[in-house]
């Protein structure tokens, strides 16, 4: 495998009064989908901006494709979708995409051809000659998505790519991201939607308060997290289970969804014990399954306590 697409080396970034990223190191190997997970205010966007060279780290360095020339020199190889979406409102969609292509160094004619292809692929060809401001938010996001991918970069960095999209459009975007990875290109995206990351990512990093909490392949992270996990689905008489679920000698951690729950067994406790206890109490069960911990469960377990105290992000980091 060639040099890592992105290597972040002990990077620290402070904004007046608080540290957004603290001595963070991570490595995104080339190829595959890398998920950067974390609660709001964890420093995901700051990390991505540091990688993009939009912010300069106070300490440490960022290496892209094994060179520390910075993203601007390598901008032809990188596609970027920022968290704050922005387009020129008065420009026509097609002109805008052509312009974005040109800023990546693609010729005008080539850029035009690719813009047409992308608009077709995203199903917005009819809007090519409309002004950006006439488009819905979701459609604008698709246009910007196309703009980030127009030059077929080998590294695609997407900051919260699926936020604000309806399920149908999120599906379209997901398919494209998966297709990019299938071509051997690298995708790095940030999200706080764990289910998505779990299904899509080869590797993940969970950060909180600007620090790395856990990283590795999804399977590895789950294995390292360890413990036995049980997924429950209730049909009736759930209130009868409450005493059992509150028993700390049986259950280490509970994530209650109402009609269902995911829990981690306490050290030395057995899932069979739990099942027996639930049946004895006459709790109506729809599902009882010993499962791998979901990323969500890991996420909550690792950073759950932090979420409540996540520092309000300073204006400059927003």
């Amino acid at each position, binding site marked *: 495998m060639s040099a890592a697409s992105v290597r972040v080396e002990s990077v620290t970034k402070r904004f007046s009064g608080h540290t957004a990223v603290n001595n963070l190191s991570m490595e995104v190997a080339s190829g595959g989908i890398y998920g950067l997970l974390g609660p709001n205010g964890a420093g995901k966007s700051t990390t991505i*901006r540091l990688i993009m060279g939009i912010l300069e780290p106070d300490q440490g360095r960022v290496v892209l494709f094994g060179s520390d020339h910075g993203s601007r020199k390598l901008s032809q190889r990188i596609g970027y979708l*920022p968290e704050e979406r922005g387009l*020129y409102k008065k420009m026509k969609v097609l002109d805008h995409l052509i312009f974005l292509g040109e800023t990546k160094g693609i010729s005008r004619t080539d850029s035009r051809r690719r813009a047409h292809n992308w608009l077709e692929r995203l199903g917005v060809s009819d809007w090519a000659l409309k002004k950006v401001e006439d488009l819905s938010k979701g459609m604008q996001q698709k246009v910007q998505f196309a703009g980030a991918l127009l030059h077929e970069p080998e590294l695609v960095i997407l900051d919260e790519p699926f936020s604000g999209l309806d399920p149908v459009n999120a599906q379209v975007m997901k398919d494209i991201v998966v297709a990019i990875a299938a071509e051997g290109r690298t995708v790095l995206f940030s999200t706080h939607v764990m289910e998505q990351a779990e299904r899509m990512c080869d590797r993940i990093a969970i950060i909180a308060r600007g620090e790395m909490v856990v990283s590795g392949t999804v399977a590895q992270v789950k294995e390292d997290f360890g413990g036995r996990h049980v997924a429950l689905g209730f049909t009736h008489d759930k209130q009868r289970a409450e005493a059992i679920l509150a028993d700390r000698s049986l259950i280490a951690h509970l994530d209650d969804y109402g009609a269902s729950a995911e829990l981690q067994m306490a050290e030395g406790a057995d899932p069979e014990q739990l099942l027996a206890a639930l049946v004895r109490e006459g709790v109506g069960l729809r599902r009882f399954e010993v499962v791998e911990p979901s990323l969500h469960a890991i996420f909550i377990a690792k950073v759950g306590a932090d979420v409540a105290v996540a520092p309000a992000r300073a*204006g400059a980091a927003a």
Partner: protein
Amino acid sequence: MKKIIAVVRREFVERVRTKAFVISTVMLPVFIVLMAVLPGLMMSGTDRTSRVAMVDASGIDLGQPVREAMLAEKLSDKPDARPRYSVQVFPASTAELASVRDGLIGKTGFSKNKQQDTWDGVMVLTADTLASGKLEYYGGNVGAVQSMSQLQRTVSNALATVRLGKSGVDAALVKKAMAAADMDTTKVSDGKLTGQSGKDSFLIAYFMGFILYISILLYGQQTMTSVIEEKTSRIMEVLTSSLTPFQMLLGKVLGVGLAGLTQMAIWGGSVFVVSSKGAEIGSMLGMGADAVQQSPIPSMPPGLLVVFLLYFALGFLLYGALYAAIGAMCNTIQETQQYAIFVTVFIIVGFFSVFSLIKDPTGGLGVTMSYIPFFAPFTMPVRWSMSSVPPLELALSLGLMVVTLLACVWLAARIYRTGILMYGKKPSWGELWRWIRA
């Protein structure tokens, strides 16, 4: 380089496409043409012979010499020109005067195809006319100031001739003596004639100073606004990932400047065309040569057009870069005002120094101002149009401008680099200084 061109093109095309740009660009030339044509049309506008009925109640046959004087007037200086008037004399006694006059007036002032249309005007000479110089004229064209003063001049000359003749002065001598003085003023530059009249260079200087002031202020602030827009729409983040701040700044200022220059060139060019080809345009619009001379648009020498556009370009780049830097420092248009005022003051001082220059084109103040790069864009073109500027002095002024321009662009790029991604609070002067040094 290719990327800068892409940015320049975007700025230029998006700006030129707006309705505001198209309308303002087209309206001024239309206005200029109207300015050139309308007064001419309104004030004289005669290219046909006026038929004058002359009621002669002088009792001394005064009608004859006046008629002869009028018939001698031609519509233009060409040898084959048609006479300006055709005159028919109706002798009348003082008693008959009113009825003859009213009868003639009844056939005057109809439009051409009407049957009653016989006369364009009725002139009444009374017994008193020779002594007092009083006479009456009734006509459909009395509002044509130019025509009326011409007619008055002709009649007074005729009356003077008759009076002098009565005193025994020879008619030929009178004619020689009455030849009018006709003074043309022409500007001299470097010992050569420029073909510009004194009135012309004043008008041009004034007009140019005004246009430079308005457009540099307008386009400079547009640059600032557009940086703010990029910041608020957050497109900046996408741009910074592919473009260097210098590419963005240069592309933006050049693009906006090019749009401004296009507008200036269209405006300046239309003044140039109207002034140098005024006669052709006039005749195309069916105006008499007489009317065209009446045009208030002065002639614009090509050299001046070049100096004008050159200083607009340099002046805009200088101020555009500064305004862009201010835009980068702020988050809203309101915020920009407290910084923009420092730049705007320079522009206003530059504009007002134009007035002192117009008063005294070779005076020390105006000449000094034309070397100071922040004021030169306004003062130098005006100085050039009002007096002759030695090439060396022009080169010095241009050289100083270019050096200052580069310094300002460098400074602006430093501020821009940090400023464009700063959201939230405005920088203090201390922080600004750190941005520049960083």
